[in-house]
């Protein structure tokens, strides 16, 4: 597999939030490289800075220190160039727009011609399996369908990157599994780079090509695990031995991260295991 170009490059990035007089370190000295076409999951306990990292990449917030490059540009330029589509925890659909109009929203903003907008939005809705719901209003759809609309909206303007911040967090287990299959299919079909924030180990293992394990207080990247499960992945994948091994590894990494806070320098060994993957990613844990 030829080396794909780096699309997201995070170098020594820290983020401090100040609430009144209290300072909270949301992210400390994060280093991460994501290559084109990867499906990277960020996993970790609450407060480990997953969402912060995503928002930094999306230029919704600015880093306190460090440097981020997105598609070769600064995050601000990348946002202006509409390099990424962002899927939020909640669908964030607009009540006053029907499904089709919601998907067309970014296209309107980006000044697409009217006819193309419609065709593109219809295509996206077909892609997420929502043809026939064009005229429905968001409140008439189930949670899963709403999130699909939100994905279709993020894909509508064909960004290089798809940033997904716990998009299925609010869904029930069954819907979530269905959505996982759908997402995997979409990723394979579109070949986009996906950065995916999740709380679920199984979801991360099932979906990702790489898993970034993070630890909390302060938020740090602990380890990057390559998921070498073969594609296409299906129900059998979930029952394979390798799947269990990988989930166990992620769980251990998370647990070690918790125990090893400021103590054991176990990063080298974990990092060693992560090395050698197609993505030359690096977890430099600065104890």
């Amino acid at each position, binding site marked *: 597999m030829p080396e794909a170009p780096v699309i997201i490059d995070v170098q020594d990035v820290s983020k401090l939030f100040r609430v009144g007089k209290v300072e909270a370190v949301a992210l400390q000295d994060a280093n991460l490289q994501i290559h084109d076409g990867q499906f990277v999951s960020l996993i970790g306990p609450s407060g480990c800075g997953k969402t912060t990292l995503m928002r930094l990449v999306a230029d919704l917030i600015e880093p306190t220190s460090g440097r981020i490059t997105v598609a070769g540009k600064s995050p601000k330029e990348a*946002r202006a160039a509409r390099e990424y589509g962002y899927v939020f925890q909640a669908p964030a659909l*607009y009540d006053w727009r029907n499904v089709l109009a919601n998907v067309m929203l970014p296209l*309107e903003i*980006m000044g697409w011609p009217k006819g193309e907008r419609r065709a593109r939005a219809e295509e996206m809705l077909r892609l997420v399996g929502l043809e026939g719901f064009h005229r429905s209003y968001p409140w008439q759809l189930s949670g899963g369908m709403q999130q699909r609309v939100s994905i279709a909206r993020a894909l509508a303007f064909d960004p290089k990157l798809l940033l997904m911040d716990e998009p299925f967090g609010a869904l029930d287990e069954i819907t979530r599994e269905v959505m996982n299959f759908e997402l995997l299919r979409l990723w394979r079909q579109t070949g986009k780079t996906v950065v995916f924030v999740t709380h679920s180990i199984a979801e991360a293992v099932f979906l990702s090509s790489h898993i970034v394990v993070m630890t909390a207080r302060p938020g740090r990247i602990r380890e990057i695990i390559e998921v070498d499960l073969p594609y296409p992945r299906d129900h059998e994948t979930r029952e394979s031995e390798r799947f269990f091994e990988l989930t166990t590894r992620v769980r251990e990494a998370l647990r070690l991260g918790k125990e090893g806070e400021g103590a054991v320098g176990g990063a080298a060994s974990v990092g060693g295991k992560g090395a050698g993957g197609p993505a030359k990613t690096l977890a430099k844990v600065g104890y």
Partner: protein
Amino acid sequence: MAREAADGARAPAWRRALSGWVPLAVVLAVLVALMYPVALLLGLPLARTRMDNVANWVRATTTPKPLSAAPADVGAGAPAGAQLRFGGAENLTTARSVLVYGDRPVDATYDLLDGAAHLRDAVAGPLLEWGGALTGPLDARSPGDADTPADVATGAGVSEGVAGHVFALPAGRWEALYLGGRLLVPGADDAIERPDGVLATFTFPEAETGPVLVNGQLLLEGEGFEGDGRRIELRSPAPFNASVRRVSGDYAVLDAAAGTIALAEASAEAPRVATATLAVVERLVGEVDGVNRVFHLQHAPLVESDAGRRIMLEDVELSPAAERPAERVDGERKAFTFTSDRGVVTVNGAEALEGRDFGRAGPVVTFTVAPPRNAALRQYPDYVVNDPATGVITLAKPPAAGSRVWAATYTYYDHPACGSSEIECFLSMPQHPMPFPHWIAKRIPAFLTNYPLSDARNVVRATLYTAGGTLTALAFGGLLGVLLAIVFVGIRPLERALLPWVIASQTVPIIALVPVLLLLLGNAGVTVQTSLVPAALIGAYIAFFPVTVGTVTGLRSVDPLSLDLMKSYASSPLQVFWKVRFPAAVPYLFVSLKLGAAAALVGALVAETESNNRLGLGYAIVGQVQAGNVSDVWILLLISAALGIGLVALVGLLQRFTAPWERR
């Protein structure tokens, strides 16, 4: 629950209607039903007050009851055993009556039964004395216009309608009128309502038929008025303070000054006047034993200022006059000089007794104890009315045993004009503090069509006018409100600078603000009495505030996620406003517009009222309140309420069309 839902979906239309409208209708019905007891609760005390006030009672006059039929031979007298009928004497008894001829009691014993006297003794001399005949019939429409006596005499200019009703009396004293030998009984009912110059509907205590007299002008049913039992409707309103009467007997005095009478029924033949007749009169009740001085009249309460009262002792009329002492009552003086050397002496209305309280030496009265300073000291030479309420009088001298004390004429309050019970009086009240709902409902069609649609006073027109003013106000207020909200949300420092003033603007009572505004507009050359501008301005002034507050809330209601989304699209601030902030504010905007519509209506009504804008509903309300037309005020309240609801519904309709996503 699922089954219930399924049932709900399958329920027939009537059942869905039942669950939707019936509760509302039931509440409405209960409220309407509650208005009845409340109306009674508020109205009955007023009815009671009306009933208790003798000023509102029907007056009646006691007069001699003359022979009902003129005898063929008036000079022949009547033999013993003859039966003589007297008109109007049905309630008199032998013991309570006196037979008189002119002012002279006749010495004859008789039994009076049902208005007929059975003579035991023969009555000598004339039974009746004819005077002249009346002249006429005359033109009743202009009795005062008959400049030449010839016109009166010939009845020239008599109009067709009232021909035969009006006659002129001959000069001199007379006692009774006869037409074709039959006694004419006088009688007229005064209207219960007081003419205010606008009122055309009147009610009479008793009379249900007969012509109506308005200020000495005769009106016939079907020509000058339409009758409906005791209620009549004049073709044109009665002048202010006019006398409105209805002929209840055979005739009534039409114009006392001109000496004209009006017959209830037209006659070609002129009635004749009797200057004296044999008549029965009321005897005063009391022992006539030479000692008793206290008598009472057969009817009470008496009308105190009764100039026509005539009390007779045998054939001598007693004077009701009162004498004042020549000296001042200073609290020390005991001796006072009056004009007469006899009479009932009263101190502050209470009788003082000769021998006990005072001694008399001719016209000089000397008290044993000085009357208090400034006491009302009076001497009544003949008699004093002790108590008008019970009709008791005290004579100065006890009449000789067996003499006849009788009442030739006096006026008394007979019974309440409004009816004999509180409910009757309540029902006959011209205005009620709270009318029965069905009265209001009955009045609505007439009220709405009072004036043609082309007339500015037409209520439907006034309602549309006010609706126009309110909508204009709402449009301006809404626009201003939205613009302010956008400015506030967009430029924080401006909000800090302006918002306190905006709030303060709403604490200014509009009732104080309107006159100032009207002055300004008037000076700017706006005719405020006919202009929509005051209503639109004041309406806008109070409508913009809820719109501002609502829209600010709406514009700020956008969740951070939606804004992040817009940021991720690198959208311009204008795009954020039009694609997110404004649409998100629309539901808030409509809620506040509904509040604004109701507020604008209040503003428009106040502005119309204070600018005396006769084209609007506000003026109509105040006008009807001032005119005291309670039912109409209620109708206007209902119309205003309906207008308010209608305007809010209109905004709701607008919302349905412009913001369909809200239809859940």
